[in-house]
């Protein structure tokens, strides 16, 4: 069974695509063959929370609630320098390794 990372934003048009792009690139580099990165609308998140393969939520907005999986704030993907972005990717990779 694969592992699923969802990248959630409000409109699913631009911001989540940027984060998805960066995470996917790193996931391929790390050789995580079973990890799927999926871009979703925050409004649709309920459908994913029940899935047993969900391991992480990356949110492009402030979420006013909590989840049972680790949540990362994806803002550095939009505005960060290369260092800030890599630091966040390192954290995400660590969390993936723990699952």
């Amino acid at each position, binding site marked *: 069974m694969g592992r699923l990372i969802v990248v959630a934003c409000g409109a*699913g048009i*631009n911001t989540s695509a*940027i984060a998805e792009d960066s995470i996917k690139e790193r996931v391929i580099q790390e050789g995580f063959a079973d990890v799927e990165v999926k871009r979703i609308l925050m409004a649709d998140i309920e459908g994913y929370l029940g899935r047993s393969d969900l391991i992480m939520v990356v949110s492009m907005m402030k979420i006013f609630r909590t989840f049972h999986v680790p949540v990362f704030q994806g803002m550095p993907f939009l505005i960060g320098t290369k260092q800030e972005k890599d630091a966040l990717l390192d954290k995400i990779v660590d969390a993936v390794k723990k699952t």
Partner: protein
Amino acid sequence: MGFLSTFVAWLLSLGSSLMVMIVLIILGLVFRVGWQKAVRGGITTGVGLAGLFLVVNVIVSALQPAVAAMATRFGITKTLVDVNWADAGIAWGWPGVAGLIVSLLVVNILMLVLKLTKTLWVDVWSYWHGSALAGFVWAMSGGNVWLGILAGVLYLVAGSLMSDLTAKKYQEFNDMPGIGVPCGTTVQASLFAMPVVWVLDRIPGLKDWDASPDGIKKRFGLMGEPGVLGFLLGVIIGIFAYGGTAADLGLAQILGLGMNVALMMIILPRMVSIIAEGIIPITLSIVQYMRERFKDREIYVAVDCAVLLGHPAVMASTIIAFPLLVLLSALLPGVNMLPIASLAVVPFWAGAIVPYTKGNVVKTVIVILLYAIPFMYLSTLTATSHTAAFQMMGQYGAEIGKGLKLASWDMGGDILGSIIQGVFHLFGV
């Protein structure tokens, strides 16, 4: 100049999706994203643009006969067809788009160096509001690319100044240090909200009236689903247009219209997303470059307005506002467009308003309704230049020849954009 205009003419003759492909590949190489990403990005955006026009084609051919039938049967003159984010097609498909991107970057750097703004405008995607306006002015002027670029830059510069005024509030409310949101009608909604909320806070009774966002979402959440909302609106228009006209009382036509409108509501944003996807590598490259150069200054890095949608009051207020906005547009005299696709912009307005209403649903709805009224009239007023822009790009020529007129809230109804169009008009454009 001679060479450039020949080149632009040739680009334009290719059609907008091929043109944007070539433009983005060149820009990608200029901003050093690597040729693989440049090519992939260019083709992706070209495909998104072509897809967008396909979807709009479906909706135009379904909706135009319906609004025309409504006009002949009941004299309801809501004849403008709402295409909303199809304007992204103008924005990325008009021939000056590359010139606009480069010009704005240069102007933004100059303004930052001279400390005229704190907004580092690196989110290339959200240039589209300015670029669509540029396309309108280009069409109004009979094809003057330079005037288009000038209008677009003016609009986007105004956007960065408005972003300076609102950034702190957005950062605090959404807990996102360092960002700013200079996007078109979103940031204008914040400026509008400031005085209106000040007044609302002083009205006894209204001051503390609120509704629970979660309760609203539970009960009416389905209405917030674009597909469901679209189907319903399509069916309502269908009943007015075709109800009782055929052997099956027009049922087939009514349901068919519902399905077509639902299709537009779901597919149109997807196509816009594909357009945006192709631009990402260029955006990322510019962010890197600029962040390195403005490291030690307090700056607000521009991000897409989608980051403002997190608060639960956003969707709750939007759902309540939807039927009221449609009703208001139907009843107000002189408003010739029933909003359908344009409703998609309302959550972004709500996102820009809630930091000022502190998440109060009732106040947010009131601000949305008041803010939307100028949009209703301005989208009617600007329909001519709007339609001309599509026509000059070679889209929907046959239908436009037969009297089709296109309009939208997000760009057509844009207050600042309409003012700039008006100023250019005064100078004889």
